[in-house]
């Protein structure tokens, strides 16, 4: 069992839950946990959530940018955006409070993961709350003092829906190449009119295929399919495009 120790508001709808998980074995950036909720009548629902935090390696920096998200051994963070009619997400994003207990299984998934031993360029492309595991990778890069080149392209609906805004802006100021794309409405004066990621934007803001990046694409299924198709059309190696879809499953 895990216990909610803290809840942080990220946007009007998304919240980060800090979970104490006794005996947590550690995890790689990009991995997720399964959260199971059980109703009084025994009905259960399980959903997967990406882990946003990074467990401190021995000797890892505990000060500096992002240090607040480098958690100690038995503590993880998940960031949850509620989906329409979501049985689990609506509870986690709206109701769960410090002291609540959750059934958590993980870490899970070793394919959509970034490890500090990787030295190649890394292109992160997230849609909506698909930014969560990508944020974990950015944090892990800092925690491991990796010099792998990272770039982040983050597509979201409108300015109010940007998760981790202050941290991302700080990291951008510190040198992380970071591009924000709005699909529905953009702030006044924003250079690019609202719209989806397209080939021209990918060409202008992401690593080129001949730089041989590993691409991590995470978001709703239509987003992931559209972006992955564009990456392949641009000439990226299919073996280097890793995807994680959020489904219609609520």
């Amino acid at each position: 069992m895990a216990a909610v120790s803290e809840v942080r508001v990220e946007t009007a709808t998304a919240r980060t839950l800090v979970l104490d998980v006794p005996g947590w074995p550690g995890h790689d950036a990009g991995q997720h946990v399964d959260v199971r909720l059980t109703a009084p009548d025994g009905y259960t629902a399980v959903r997967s959530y990406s882990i946003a935090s990074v467990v401190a390696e021995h000797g890892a920096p505990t000060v500096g940018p992002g240090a607040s998200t480098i958690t100690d051994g038995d503590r993880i963070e998940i960031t949850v955006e509620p989906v329409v009619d979501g049985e689990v997400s609506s509870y986690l994003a709206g109701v769960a409070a410090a002291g609540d207990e959750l059934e958590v299984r993980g870490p899970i998934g070793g394919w959509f993961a970034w490890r500090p031993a990787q030295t190649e360029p890394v292109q992160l492309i997230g849609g909506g709350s698909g930014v969560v595991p990508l944020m974990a990778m950015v944090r892990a890069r800092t925690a491991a003092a990796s010099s792998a080149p990272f770039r982040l392209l983050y597509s979201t609906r409108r300015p109010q829906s940007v998760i981790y805004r202050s941290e991302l802006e700080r990291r951008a100021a510190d040198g992380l190449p970071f591009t924000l794309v709005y699909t529905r409405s953009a702030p006044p004066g924003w250079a690019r009119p609202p719209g989806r990621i397209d080939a021209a934007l990918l060409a202008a803001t992401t690593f080129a295929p001949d730089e041989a990046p590993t691409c991590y694409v995470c978001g709703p299924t239509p987003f992931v399919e559209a972006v992955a198709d564009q990456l392949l059309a641009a000439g990226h190696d299919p073996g280097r495009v890793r995807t994680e879809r959020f489904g219609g499953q609520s």
Partner: protein
Amino acid sequence: MKPLDGNAAAGQLRTIFAVDVTAATGRCAGCGRTAPLGAAQSYQQAPGIVLRCPGCDAVLLRVVAGPDRTWLDGRGLAYLQFDTPAS
């Protein structure tokens, strides 16, 4: 109905296999394509989980868990190859 990735089946598969099979390479018995199971298409709206080949859509793996037993049908996989680090 939109599929997820094999990653989404990782939790269920972890209850069966001793290792993380989403990072394992599977060969499709239908078309011969090899890919990590994490790259397979995962359909979870059924009573169980169905993993399909990203190349030819053939069923690779089916898992159905009942209250007291689990069925695993892997006939669509010619093989599964996973890392076994020296311990």
